[in-house]
């Protein structure tokens, strides 16, 4: 009992620079997609460093976006960048663990509409294109994210 509580505390203890969050079970399946096999996709994204640059550009673009910037403004930016990086790195088979929440609870009550999701996809496409990710590889990655729409967009 004490051990479980301790484990939960250690798991969810905030990383440096992040605000504390309510405890939740940490598991890779929270990423909402299974990883690619092989190293092809990781290479197409410029390895972990490439993924980090894409995530930073992507988050910057979303924050500056006049349509969806508000949705992102209220979030812990440090945690958002870390968990997004982990999620992308995990899915692209970069050897990362995903420690964020699942897609449903992390997008709960955000009031996200279909047009917001599309705008987000366009910002991600722009970030991937700037990093030089080939379009076919961009689409292969989006194929992993596409089924998440039902958990992100509120009906």
């Amino acid at each position, binding site marked *: 009992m004490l051990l479980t509580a301790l484990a939960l505390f250690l798991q969810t203890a905030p990383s440096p620079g992040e605000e504390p969050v309510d405890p939740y079970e940490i598991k890779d399946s929270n990423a909402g997609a299974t990883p690619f096999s092989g190293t092809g996709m990781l290479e197409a994204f410029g390895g972990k460093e490439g993924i980090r640059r894409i995530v930073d550009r992507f988050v910057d673009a979303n924050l500056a976006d006049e349509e969806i910037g508000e949705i992102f403004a209220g979030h812990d930016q440090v945690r958002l960048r870390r968990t997004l990086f982990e999620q992308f790195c995990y899915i692209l088979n970069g050897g990362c663990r995903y420690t964020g929440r699942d897609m449903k609870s992390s997008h709960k009550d955000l009031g996200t*509409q*279909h*047009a*917001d*999701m*599309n*705008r987000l*996809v*366009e910002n991600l*496409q722009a970030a991937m294109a700037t990093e030089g990710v080939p*379009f*076919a590889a961009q*689409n*292969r990655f*989006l*194929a992993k994210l*596409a*089924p998440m*729409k*039902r958990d992100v967009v509120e009906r």
Partner: protein
Amino acid sequence: MYFAKIMACAAAVLIAVPAAAEELRQGGKLLLTNGVTTIEGASGGGISTWALIAGNETTDGIGGSAHVSIVVLPDYDWQSHGAAIGLFDRVELSYARQNFNTRDIGAALGIGQDYVLRQDVFGAKVRLFGDAVYGSPWAPQVAVGVQHKRNLDGWVARAVGAKETEGTDFYVAATKLSLSTSILVGATARLTKANQNGLLGFGGDKGEDYSVQFEGTLGYQLSRRFVIGGEYRTKPDNLGVAREDDWFDLYAAYAITRNLTATAAYADLGSIATVPKQRGAFLSLQASF
């Protein structure tokens, strides 16, 4: 006048849809996911109707489009133009006018040099379920629709043996962009009596009942803005005096902006009104909001 009716219908639907009471959201569709406009005025490719809904709107708004298309053939000129309304990415209402200039063939057939066969097409389409881009890669967007066609030169249609000068097509269409392969797939089954789309009337001496025809497309997405592909469309062959062939094209569609898409294609329309090998260029411009 008919377009005014469509607009009135659209207005009625708007009043009936509760979402309209909330704030409507302008635009928001991903580039190219409103399709381009077929020669019958529906959202699709050039000759095959797809399950996509016209306009740039999502489920939270209202959009629309207008188009002009020409097909330059060895012996004919085809021109169509029209407009469509998309309601909440659910319902599409469309109108297209087709003008088919018979040039020298008109004189040869005795209907007059440069005689233009004209037809109005009124369309309605409803997306039943699915999403062409999101969701399961195995679950296509599926829509059903009707196209009511009124041939405005019925005497020519009757002269070549058509039974009717008006007809209504019914179709079901499924469309999916496979993101993992960047391949666009579409298939449509259509119940129709139309001879050459209806420009030569409906039904004839070789058949006067509905038949099931197929439309298919395969495309490859090269970028957010650019898709290339081909389409195939089977057609009835109801008229003894004028053999009719299946249609085929190879297309390239480019989203110049969010509001403007250009399409160019090589189209093989086979034999039309006794003149074989009608192969030429299809060009289309679509504005959407």
